[in-house]
């Protein structure tokens, strides 16, 4: 189970963490990011943390818990 996940992820988060070993490069996170700050090359994912607004969308959409929101 995911140590960072909790119900309070719905909505704003305090910190965003990427766990590359879990990532399947499926693009769900990119699809729901309102500020387009995630780049997904074939098997390389980069988050522009400077542009991220910590909206909490991508941890909700990630099917495998590779992007996790640390609750405030």
């Amino acid at each position, binding site marked *: *189970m*995911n140590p960072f*996940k*909790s*119900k309070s*992820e*719905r909505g704003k988060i305090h910190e965003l963490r990427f766990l590359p070993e879990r990532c*399947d490069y*499926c*693009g*769900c996170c*990119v*699809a*729901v*990011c*309102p500020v*387009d700050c995630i*780049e*997904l*090359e*074939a098997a390389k994912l980069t988050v522009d943390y400077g542009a991220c607004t910590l909206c909490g*969308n991508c941890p*909700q*959409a*990630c*099917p*495998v*818990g590779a992007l996790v929101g640390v609750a405030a």
Partner: protein
Amino acid sequence: MIRDAYDVIIVGAGPAGSMTARYAAEGGASVLLLEKDRDIGLPVRCAEAVGAKTLASYVELNPSWIAHQLSGVRFTSPNGITFDVMTDNLGYILNRRIFDQELGRKAAQAGATVLTRAYVCGLILRADQVCGVKVRFPDGEKEIAAKIVVGADGVESRVGRWAGMRTNFALKDFESCYQVMLGGVSLETNCIHCYFGHDVAPGGYAWVFPKGADVANVGLGIAADRSDGLNAKDYLDRFLEKNFPNASILACVAGGVPAAKPLKKIHGPGVMLVGDAAAHTNPLTGGGISNAIAAGKLCGEVAARCVKQGGWSEADLAVYTKEYDANWGNHQRNSYRLKEAVHHIKDETLNKAAHILADLPPEKRTMLDVFTTTLSHEPGILIDIMRSFLS
């Protein structure tokens, strides 16, 4: 091998991109089709079910990519009541790796240049007009000019956003999915099997699609706003534990499906979007293969026509949004309304309806009998759900 300029550049070689490339090339345009992965058709982020009718009207059927023939849908209610609805020649489970490759090959045959390991990392814009793409190859970056750029870049599409369109999805209109290919399972039916229920897949459903005698695509999708601390993989682990505790996992994959209303605009100055990139999926069933193919053909034809007529401004390309909407807009809007209704239906209501239907003798389970039975009880909505899955 690659030129500095093409009439049409298509980003993404899924079914939507390959069909667009084929029809743009057949219409006389010079076409470049770019795919970031190293193989067209891999990885397969799909349960591979497709309706027979639409497929046959857009591509020549080929046994090399048909894995299994389907003759019905089996529904399982939240409390485990099961009933089948049978229809002849309902559809197929594809072998998408081969199917996608075949569509890519058809684009090449039509004259398009196809290239893999070509990641498009941005657009060339002049004023607001899209004039080409920036491509990252393994050995460096290159700018390539185009009159029209088509974003067929799937669910993770950014082409529209680079061109200033808002194409990101709201959580409630996005299904977060996880799927495994199971081996060593015994499946006695030629039905696709759908399971509903809040504990199974909140805001979505779980599927078991037979791919052969002992192989099946087994997965589920949940509405991204409903995950409540559990993600799609957690739900699937639970489902497998309950239904297939001893099966082997031959492949596993994560993925997402748009479950949205049609976008207001799928074109801009020098740019068009198609397939998942344009939310061209059925919001209720999550099916997107046939939509991608159909819209791809239209998109390619419009691109070729505009190149020929010498105009690719926003106004010139508006015909694409208009024709998509005229052909498929209402169907997508209806499916969206149904999806919204289904997501708010209570488990008990589904259980009650399933109970009524399960009492129908199998030979009376034609759509018409099911229809009249549910009408005389409620909720009639179940009928609409089934219709969606059977079309």
